[in-house]
């Protein structure tokens, strides 16, 4: 069975001073049905833009200039505006970082979910309201009947995120894009929302593209992990091998800098330097300016894809260099 979502060589650019700046540059990955793929990276690594490119919602003046996005074999980048609108919400839904601001403040939350249902399905208002009530119960909102008529400002952040999740799942989409769904929430509420997402994903079989910079969340939820750096995919692997034996120096650096791994009293090892600005990207590997193991070709040519193990892809000259010997052994 082919993957639900196939992204190939996706390239999204924004016009800049020195010509177009690619914020997403040649990104390829698959998302299987019912799978949770985490897209990990720092701010500005292009993970959110990848999601917006899939939905064709890249804010102007940015645009997708190359590549393909296939959902169940259908190329989304070639669809008409109207056909694309039917994909959004109906087949791919999205939830956002800030539940506080994602709901219209002047419309009752139940009404907003009812509208989302009726937008894509021809059902009566009463039926949609019944479904909304059931959805509210399903996403763990206490006293759903009363909450239907609440305004967003009357709900807590966690409840609002639950409403957003209910809205996103109201039309039973095949795929959900979750853009840092717990970043704005309290730690205890974060855990609840993550549990909820996992339960819903298991009971409904929805595939989730989880965008996050929190490796703890990755560990909680993801089946596979794709790491992005400066618009490029650097490593993609199943969760356990990626977290236990990362291959790319950037992934290694990220994991080393997690507080949970450090010893009390010792400074956390960090990745030296900062992410270079798009105009200062090296021609070769984007990480070569900060990489501890860089050597000659790194700054000049971009590393090719290597497959160190089944289901693992990594873009690194160093890994490439070591691989044949490992293979010969």
């Amino acid at each position, binding site marked *: 069975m082919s993957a639900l979502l196939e992204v190939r060589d996706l390239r999204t650019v924004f016009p800049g001073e020195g010509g177009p700046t690619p914020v997403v540059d040649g990104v390829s990955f698959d998302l299987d049905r019912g799978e949770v793929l985490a897209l990990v990276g720092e701010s500005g690594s292009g993970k959110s833009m990848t999601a917006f490119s899939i939905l064709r919602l890249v804010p102007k003046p940015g645009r997708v200039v190359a590549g393909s996005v296939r959902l169940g074999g259908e190329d989304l980048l070639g669809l008409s505006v109207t056909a694309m*609108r039917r994909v959004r*919400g*109906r087949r791919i*839904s*999205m939830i956002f970082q800030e539940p506080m601001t*994602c709901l219209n403040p*002047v419309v009752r939350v139940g009404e907003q979910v009812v509208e989302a249902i009726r937008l894509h399905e021809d059902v009566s208002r009463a039926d949609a309201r019944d479904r909304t009530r059931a959805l509210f119960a399903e996403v763990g909102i206490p006293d759903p009947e009363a909450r239907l008529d609440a305004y967003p400002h009357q709900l807590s952040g966690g409840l609002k995120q639950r409403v957003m999740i209910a809205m996103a799942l109201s039309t039973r989409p095949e795929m959900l894009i979750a853009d840092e769904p717990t970043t704005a929430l309290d730690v205890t509420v974060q855990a609840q929302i993550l549990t909820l997402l996992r339960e819903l994903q298991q009971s409904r079989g929805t595939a989730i593209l989880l965008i996050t910079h929190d490796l703890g969340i990755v560990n909680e939820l993801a089946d596979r992990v794709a790491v992005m750096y400066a618009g490029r995919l650097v490593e993609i692997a199943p969760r356990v091998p990626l977290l236990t034996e990362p291959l790319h120096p950037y992934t290694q650096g990220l994991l080393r800098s997690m507080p949970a791994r450090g010893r009390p009293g010792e400074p956390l090892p960090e990745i030296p330097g900062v992410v270079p600005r798009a105009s200062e990207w090296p021609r070769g590997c984007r990480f070569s300016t900060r990489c501890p193991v860089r050597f000659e070709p790194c700054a000049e040519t971009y590393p090719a894809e290597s497959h160190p193990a089944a289901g693992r892809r990594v873009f690194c000259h160093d890994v490439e260099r070591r691989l044949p010997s490992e293979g010969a052994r």
Partner: protein
Amino acid sequence: MSGLDPYVWSNLVTVALVVGGLALARFVRGQRLWREASVELWRRRRVAIVVVGVYLVIALLDSIAWKGGVPEGTVGVLPNAPLTVVDRLFLDTKEASYSAPLADVEFYGGRPLRRPGTHLLGTDILGRDVLYMSLKGARVALLIGGLTSLIAIPIALFFGVGAGYFGGRFDDFVFFLISTLASMPGILLLIALIMVMGRGTLSVCVALAVTGWVGFCRLSRAETLKLRELDYVVAARALGVSEPRIIWRHVLPNLAHLIVITFVLMFSGLVLSEAVLSWLGIGVDGSWGQMIDGARDELSREPIVWWNIGAAGTALFGLILAVNAVGDAVRDVLDPRTLRAGE
């Protein structure tokens, strides 16, 4: 339209206003936000609201008209002309002389008064009862303020929201319009427009609207620019909501408080503009502006004629002050940052 007499239209407008007002009241009762805002408004500005209400009632009474019932020999009225309620209260008030309030002697060499002591605010140089004219002015003032706002605000919203939401060429076009209008002196443009369209209530309203929409257009454009980038608009797009529906459901309702505030504040400015136009001789017949204009020269008489300019000025002042007081409170109540300040 041609088949109906003007007074029929006047009555229909009255009915429409009353029905519209009741519908609005129903809507406000149903929406918690607006209900709380209106209760708060009433709590803060009881007097001003009552004053505005009185003006409204006078204007409505002056809009309900029917034919007949006019006694034979009444001065200045055609036998079968439709008269409004206010007209009927003041039948036969035209005098052959110029008199001070409640005066029982004539001034300035007129003939003896037929109804001495009954002109509460005196008569003007043409012998018309000043109280009657002041009451008649209420309808004109409300018509100018209300109708002009009803023309100007939709224009401003159309261009402002369109420019803010879609940007690009439409934005350029709207800004071209705005800067063109802004580069012409407003009063000259008003005069030119009224000369082209001819004098009359409607053309004055249209002219005031054409020159008056720019400010709110800028405001709504800026606000839409902000709303367009808000997360819930992006979220709506991610859920597959179409652009017109986003504007209708997510942008316009969030502009509603601005629309209400602008309407109230614009209103008083427009009534004052009409007084300026009357002074230039291109105002609306029967307005307070015209009364003031007509009474200007009378101030130099001996003894001084203060009553007609005083009456018109007081009526105008009362309405503007009340509307501004209400407008101020509307802004305080609807702006979420100041809503809780008084509690």
